[in-house]
């Protein structure tokens, strides 16, 4: 497994929506590359026949009944918002469109 490059960190930071300055990239890239190198060994040990565990205690079908519970008031919902307007959360201009 190839190590993590500075350009990878730059791309990943964009994907994770964290702005990074050149100094940030310099500082974090080296540390991240070392961490990636040390964790990459997980790929060596488990073969095809080993199932993945995504949940430590096996359970299934934990559902809730379709019954209405009280919602927050609009005031409570918006109380923590950096900015609100007309009962809605206000955000700066949106550039892209998503799925």
């Amino acid at each position, binding site marked *: 497994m190839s190590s993590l490059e500075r350009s990878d960190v730059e791309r990943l930071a964009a994907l994770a929506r964290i702005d990074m300055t050149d100094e940030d990239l310099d500082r974090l890239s080296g540390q991240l590359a070392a961490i990636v190198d040390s964790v990459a060994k997980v790929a060596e040990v488990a073969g095809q026949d080993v199932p993945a565990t995504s949940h430590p205690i096996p359970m299934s*079908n934990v*559902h809730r009944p*379709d019954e209405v519970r009280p919602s927050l008031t609009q005031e409570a*919902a918006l109380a923590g918002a950096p900015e609100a307007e007309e009962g809605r959360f206000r*955000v700066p201009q949106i550039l892209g*469109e998503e799925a």
Partner: protein
Amino acid sequence: MSNMTYDSAMEQFDPVFGIEVHVELNTKTKMFCGCANEFGAEPNTQVCPVCLGLPGSMPVVNDKAVESAIRLGLSLGCDIRESSRFARKNYFYPDLAKDYQISQYDEPTCFEGSLDVVLDDGEVFTIGIERAHMEEDAGKNTHVGGTGGIQGASHSLVDYNRGGVPLVEIVTHPIKGAGARTAEVARAYVATIRDIVKALGISDGRMEQGSVRADVNLSLRPKAAPGEDQDVVPFGKRSETKNVNSLRAIERAIHHEAGRQADLLLAGKPVVQETRHWHEDTNSTTPGRSKEEAEDYRYFPEPDLLPVEPSREWVEELRGTLPEHPAKMRARLKEDWNFSDMEMRDAVNADALDLILASVDAGATPQAARKWWMGELARTANDREVSLCDLPVTPGHIAELQSLIDDGKINDKLARQALEGVLAGEGSPAQVVESRGLEVVSDDSALEAAVDEALAAQPDVLAKIQDGKVQAAGAIVGAVMKATRGQADAGRVREIILQRAGVEG
């Protein structure tokens, strides 16, 4: 606008298309929390820590949504996976509260089905279904400033009432071989899905409110040379047109995209694989944001939720609750009701079938129900720019109206006035007849008095009648009807006139 018409594009290229339909389920609550799932509330009043994505909150699956998804999957002929899972689809967007959507990825609950759709001329086309999976809806952005669209807006406002509403996404396999009928097949497919979800009772199926939404992807490939198998010709690059939200728009979007792509291909230009947006006003599509690299959604199993493992017994029990396929039901109703092809098609296209059926169930004859829903009421809905089902008239009202006519209490003309009253919110037809005093005057003494008055006023006409010119009675009938404001039974009036004139009828 494209130069190429749809028909000539289809002559030169072989279209391949696929459709993703999102169905909003009509559960009482959202997919992962107990907030009400209702359309049209004040912004951010149907939200809680879970669907607002507040720190610390956790999702719990709505069991009714699972049941609805399985019933839908079974209706689409899908297999139901013994163990399926939710996964997170990670991307940042303001209307996505957690900045990931809980969806299903490599283990959808329903997979590999097929659906027969019946075209207008009765031809049956089979659509392969790849999967039907559960997920949650996003909130709604409103763009402020500019023209109200996203372009040029100064800022946006977000309402999360819709965030977390349960969806089932149905994905087709690539659909080949429809040729020039592609647009028609696409439309019929979405219409069939809509009819199925309504028949299942798992969604209101209202496309105008976004309860059923379609993304349509289309590509064109060269037609195979004579003798060559079309299947060996590789697919072209496809565009995906998002949020096509009416049946008519589905046809039009395919027409537009086929023309646009054919133009490019014939000019030797590449078709870009991209997302496009449909504009109802201009009947055209425009590209979405150009993405420098493909989105990387970093799907992984949702660690806050556990596998869905429906027992085989339960799945079979649900299979027993499935309604008739809409096409079959239509064929049966058409025969039962003795409708012509055109009558049936018009009723289907006007979304009146359920209303007619309910009116018949409430006691109206099929033809009477059809007459009212497709006549007077269709015109009113059109004038008011609403759907038939949004008018303040119920199938029960129609049955009641018709029985008032059949009992001779009112005539057709009065019935229209009664319906006006119902539409104005004055109550049921019987109540309107009562309050507006619309009943046919059947009291002979009242009619005799009116006849006597009219005869006295027109002695020359009386003389003509007595001379044997009975057709002259028409003038007196007219006068009496006028005097009773149309509430008299014209036949009975005529009898009384002849009686009073001493002429045998």
